[in-house]
């Protein structure tokens, strides 16, 4: 099986995806991801020059509603409880801008 992806590719994809890949994991990612990409190469058997891409399949467009507030049950206490750090109804995070 040819390797479609290099070590550098794997590190680059991981960076884009906000994941850390350990050196031990890189090899298995190369094998697994290459096998999947190899399999999907068969799509190139089909000529698709004149075909439009499908983004969604039920042809709904511009679903509108009246701009009025609705009663919504989401419980702010639970929302806050799911946060590791919160203060006075705010989410608390590390400093973003130094």
């Amino acid at each position, binding site marked *: 099986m040819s390797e479609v*992806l290099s070590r550098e*590719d*794997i590190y680059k*994809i*991981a960076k*884009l*995806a*906000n*994941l*850390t890949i350990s050196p031990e994991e890189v090899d298995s*990612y190369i094998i*697994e*991801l290459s*096998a*999947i*990409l190899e*399999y*999907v190469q*068969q*799509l*190139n*058997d*089909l000529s*698709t020059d004149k*075909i*439009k*891409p*499908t*983004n*969604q*399949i*039920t042809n*709904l467009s511009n*679903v509108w*509603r009246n701009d009025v507030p*609705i009663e*919504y*049950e*989401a*419980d*702010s206490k*639970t*929302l806050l*409880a*799911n*946060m*590791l*750090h919160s203060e006075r109804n705010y*989410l608390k*995070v*590390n*400093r*973003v801008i130094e």
Partner: protein
Amino acid sequence: MNSQTIEALVTQIKAGSLSVLKLVEDCYDKIEAAQSFDFIIAETKQRALERAKTLDQEIAQGKRSNKRLFGIPFIAKDNFLSYGAKTTAASKMLANFEAPYQATAITKLEDEGAICVAKSNLDAFAHGSSTENSDFMITKNPYDVTRVPGGSSGGSAVAVALQVVPFSIGTDTGGSIRQPASFCGVIGYKPTYGLVSRSGVIAMSSSMDTIGVFTNNIDDCQLVMDVMSGQDPLDSTTLDSKHKIVYPSLPSKSSQFKVAVIKNYLDDAVDPKVRASFNVFVSKLKSDPNIVLCEIDLQSLKYALAVYYVLGPAEIASNLGRYDGLRFGYSNPSDSIEETYLSNRTNGFGAEAKRRIMIGTYVLSSGYYDAYYKKAQKVRTIIVDNFKQAFLKHDFLIGPTVPTPAFKIGQKTKHSMDMYLSDIMTVAANLAGIPDINLPIDRANNLPVGVQIMANQTQDNQLLAFSKYLEGKI
């Protein structure tokens, strides 16, 4: 209890001859007795028992109710946000997540009097075809505990196969209801895309995710789908309610069913025992005077899995982008915000979620978008058109649901491609957004074999009417 239809149970409850509390307590006894199958993540006992008592009181006070699922217990896959227990998606990432609101599907069932008794196991984030990817436990097949129940809705399929509850709900993005239904010998229904609201269901691949049901008979399937389907202001992809499923069925316009066997679903990859069972099923259809049967070649379907494994991961990578561990989810903060993101995502996601995020990120990345993502979207168009053409001539398309009966635990975990291939005959329906049902037809060496029946988009009522026609005949 489940040899009876839901309708019959509801009638007895309303007549006062069957206590809801007893029914719900029975469910917990059955869950306990079936513990070794590892199909339940959490019970929602306190909430369920309270709801049961309230409903029993209504009956005792002589109140009349039109609720069609009055007192009926059910189990939900643990990727539905619900009260009464944590909602985990079987992932370490959400192991401590408390839902701040409920999925519309759950709320609709509760509004009709149904009672959620437990949350069932799945492949974490619904990524998988065997329920082995759960971060918590591996669910066992009810017919052979050394085999998988299928997935990703494996726990929900087992719950109905073991008759713990009359129905359970699941999600289906590439076969996650139909494939475990086939492996566990129960009915599994995947509706037209957009027929059931996905508000409050943990998103996987948004252009393909659907919500459906497991049952032991068509009437129950149709009744539950009637309750769950319909437009929802909280999900702008839901279809107009004129397409919703109705129970009982409206009288059929036609007395003849035009059915085509998908020839290319019967190639060498199909297990001989599955093929034999399927051929017996086809011969029964052939001899039925109300069925016009022919064969069809849908060449584009051989590309369905490749399309699915580009578009699916792309949408997964996008949907899982929101998991940063700050507002909810696994959190192991570091000194900087960047390191916190990395730490939370790297430690919170399991191997399969990470694999799919990596693939999806790659096919969407600069320089590869056209070659992979856009290419797959175009081939999706070819598949959709192929189905549209087929449904001009035929009402229903049939084939085996899965190429094999349930496989052994561990058999396909070494190489992810092996596992992905078990969805090869179910993903096409998700790409086209069409309804598809698994009906159990046979046993091969005591393992269930299923057939799938597909219909055109929004023809759900016709599909269920045909399934009902076949029930008892097959």
